[in-house]
């Protein structure tokens, strides 16, 4: 068990190291950092001095080590376009992205499970068919089109919800939250739906398939034979057993939600990390791009690691099979 955790943690470190290498390669070799920092009329001697000062003449391995050491202390360099430390820019925008991702995931979980259970229990009803159609549209429609559609309906035509931004935010220490003001909550609705729709259809399909599977098992049949009420069987026995894979997927998807927030944040001009990243790509602001890659890599690796470890804790069968090949 412990050996497994250590091995997985080492693997995760290896992945992070690879991501760090890519981030560093981008940071160092894509374009000339000095050119980005100074004006076109800077004399060559001055450029050389800056190169020396930045350590760009040192061996590449040393530079890589320095970059990683900096990244460990959240020092990702200075943004070309904002002339501010990248870490500060990212941390200012992180609360917006995390709140959005969390709301979207909650929305996807609640509605996905409800719709999935319903369409598994009443497979042939009209409403279940409607849910299936919605899920097909949710998979096919590009995220940004859904966002535009929502903006046109609820912001332009009906005027109910704001079309962009976070609304009023409240400062709690270094964290800014939009959850405590009325306008902040209103601003959160459409982006959350846009971001959560894909995950919702995913969870709905998963719950439906798992429920259909579980309802066929012997212990459900036995529960019926015992004369338990249908509701108790469906929700007490069947749903409970479908939730483990659902929560796993939802957890694993949290990373993708943060990455897909790039699109949603652009549509709604949501001041989060994704919007910062898109602007960085357009302005070739490599330090921000590299730092964002590292950050998202870290989030993905940590989520995967936690899910893996939780799995072995929850499911003793996995521990047995894991011991065998080692």
């Amino acid at each position, binding site marked *: 068990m412990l050996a497994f955790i250590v091995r997985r943690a080492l693997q995760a470190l290896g992945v992070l190291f690879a991501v760090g290498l890519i981030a560093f390669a981008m940071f160092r070799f894509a374009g000339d950092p000095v050119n980005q920092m100074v004006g076109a009329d800077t004399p060559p001697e001055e450029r050389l001095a800056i190169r020396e000062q930045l350590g760009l003449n040192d061996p590449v391995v040393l530079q890589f080590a320095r970059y990683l050491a900096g990244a460990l202390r959240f020092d990702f360099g200075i943004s070309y376009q904002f002339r501010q430390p990248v870490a500060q820019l990212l941390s200012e925008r992180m609360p917006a992205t995390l709140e959005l991702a969390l709301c979207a995931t909650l929305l996807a979980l609640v509605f996905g499970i409800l719709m999935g259970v319903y369409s598994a229990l009443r497979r042939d009803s009209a409403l279940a068919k409607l849910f299936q159609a919605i899920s097909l549209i949710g998979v096919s429609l590009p995220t940004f089109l859904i966002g535009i559609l929502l*903006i046109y309906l609820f912001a332009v035509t009906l005027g109910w919800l704001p079309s962009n931004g976070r609304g009023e935010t409240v400062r709690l220490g270094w964290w800014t939250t939009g959850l405590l003001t009325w306008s902040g909550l209103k601003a959160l609705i459409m982006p959350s739906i846009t971001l959560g729709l894909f995950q919702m259809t995913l969870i709905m399909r998963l719950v439906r398939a798992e429920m259909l599977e579980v309802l066929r098992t012997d212990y459900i049949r036995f529960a019926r034979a015992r004369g338990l009420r249908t509701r108790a069987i469906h929700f007490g026995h069947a749903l409970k057993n479908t939730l483990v894979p659902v929560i796993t997927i939802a957890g694993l998807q949290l990373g993708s939600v943060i*990455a897909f927030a790039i*699109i949603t944040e*652009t549509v709604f001009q949501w001041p989060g990390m994704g919007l910062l*990243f898109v602007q960085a*790509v357009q302005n070739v602001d490599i330090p921000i*791009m590299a730092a964002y890659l590292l950050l*998202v890599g870290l989030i993905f*690796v940590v989520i995967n690691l936690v899910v893996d470890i939780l799995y072995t804790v929850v499911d003793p069968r996995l521990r047995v099979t894991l011991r065998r090949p080692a």
Partner: protein
Amino acid sequence: MDEALSPVPASPKPVSWAGGFFDSDLWISFKRSKVTVIAAIITLLFFLLAIFAGLVAPQDPFDPAQLDLLNSRLPPIWQEGGQAPFVLGTDDQGRDIFSAIAYGLRISLIVGFLGVLFSAVLGIGLGLIAGYFGGVTDAVIMRIADVQLTFPAILIALLIDGVVKSVLGNQIDAWTILGVLVFSIGLSFWVQYARTVRGSVLVEKNKDYVAAARLIGLPAPVVMLRHVLPNVLGPVLVIATINLALAIITEATLSFLGSGMPPTMPSLGTLIRIGNDFLFSGEWWIVAFPGLALATLVLAINLLGDWLRDALNPRLR
């Protein structure tokens, strides 16, 4: 997609599912599914519209000589103020929306097809090598695939796009950007092909025909390409169809985010990006029709892919 699965009323001629000519089975299951037939017709119409854009479109939307500012911001023809040749209205430069869609569709489909082709060739090649040689080669390739799979394709495509542009500089022409898009989409979608092909190769390579081919002294590339490859292509076809829709969406998303095709040679995504600015001034048609075209195209291709997956799967999942 469910139509292909549901039991079908007995047809006059009994059709044997086991055995028989593979193509005819596929054709029969195709004809039985109404949704699939409609999806195929719609996809075909889109392809034709893209190929014959020059003939069908009333104007060449990117020839400034043909644009007239007097015709700018006209609504679709069924609304008050709509004018004769501009069926779906015009944008702020007097550009016919229908013509713009036809030409944009062309770009979207070119990027989609080339992207799928590139990722398929890359993925199939690496999958064949990994499965056939095994050992360290296999481990290295599949490890890279694992790492890449943890990141969403759109993020990888954005990163590659940004890096390539920073290397090439900002002054690059539209065709180079198209190449960059194909490159980044191809690099972000190869993993699925590689995994599938590797899995099938691991099964195939222990069969007698591979041993026979090796015994008569054929070199490894010939065994891989001529003997193993044809036997692992079935699932690849399904992935390629579904990935065509994904590639088109990815290209549209990149263009929408401003990292894709420029307004001088727009794809559907660029058209939506441009049209999005007119949403608040009430000119909804500038964004709505390109959006509708994109959504319909992707939905139709997805339906085709779903059907193909079920039809090619003997167990029908």
